[in-house]
């Protein structure tokens, strides 16, 4: 599935991934390929995008996550890459 993490100043991440774990407003949600259309508000916390053995982590605050036709979009005002 295709994942994009978008902040106002530009796309933070764009690429394919096997799984996404995002901090929703009421706890973490995990997204795997072929997820049903889904939209949720995000809270504050750690967003992880995993592709095979490699993973990327970001600190996000607010915004939302949208899944449609195997496209995952995380739209947030604050997204910083984490070590």
């Amino acid at each position, binding site marked *: 599935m295709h994942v*994009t993490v*978008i*902040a*106002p*100043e*530009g*796309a933070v991440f764009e690429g394919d991934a096997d799984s996404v774990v995002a901090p*929703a*407003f*009421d706890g973490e949600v995990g997204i795997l390929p072929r997820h*049903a*259309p*889904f*939209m*949720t*508000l995000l809270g504050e916390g750690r967003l992880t995008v995993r592709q095979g053995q490699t993973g990327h982590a970001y600190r996000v605050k*607010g*915004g*939302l996550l*949208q899944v*449609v*036709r195997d496209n995952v*979009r995380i*739209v947030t*005002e604050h997204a910083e890459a984490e070590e």
Partner: protein
Amino acid sequence: MAQPRELRRRIKSVDNTRQITKTMEMVATSKLKRARDRVVAARPYAAALAEIIRDLHDPTLVERFPLLRRVDGNIRRAAVVGITSNRGLAGAFNANLIKETSARVRAFEREGAEVELHMIGKKGVGYFKYLGRTMATAHQDISDRPSMDDAIRVIDPLVRRFEAAELDAVDIVFAKFVSALSTPATSLRVLPVQVETADGTDGGGGTAPNYILRPSAEEIVGVVLPLYVRNTMYRCLVETAASEQGARRTAMKNATDNAGDMLDTLRRTYNRARQAQITQEISEIVGGAAALE
């Protein structure tokens, strides 16, 4: 005919000016490139927000969200946010923006609305101060690399007052970045939020996938709308910043070209004057020698 010495001085002065405008042109070109990258980078976020709003939009939402509220009848109180640059030497760039801002204000006033003016940029602030028009706010500290925080600082107070029904409409006047050569001053209604639906009408799109929504469509829209408004402000700032560099590059290129033309003419006149002087001196010498014989 002018003295050669006089001409030499003018040539030097025009040449200096040309060097300065040429340098400014190059500076603007490199700043333009970076500013344009920022405009392009800001697009996906705006597109994503617009799509989400479109997907979730349904006509019944209008009553529940103050940001979508449209007044029936006349607009009583409106705000115009005019964006200009902090620096000049960009041709008619700021003049066009100021003209469009004034036109927006007048259009609201014709409708019988009370208009408050919010200016961004030293050029616009200076102009309206000179006219003696009171500005509700004057931001002169936004750089040519505007940030999201700048946008929030400008628009959030207006959003709150719109929600409290103290304002009926908010327009932004900015320089749309069509290309480096085309940067028309444009006005945009930012509040109430204009929802573009898929079929161009105001009804629900109908093509939206059947989402699982958490916590609810209403709450998501409640979060997305303010983000969208802020982002619109941010985009206007970024586009104006890029347009400014484009306009400056064009203006400085014209100035450099004109200085070049002027140098050509001056050099030609100078050479002719010098030639005339030499000819005259020779004929004087020949005349003097002839007189001695």
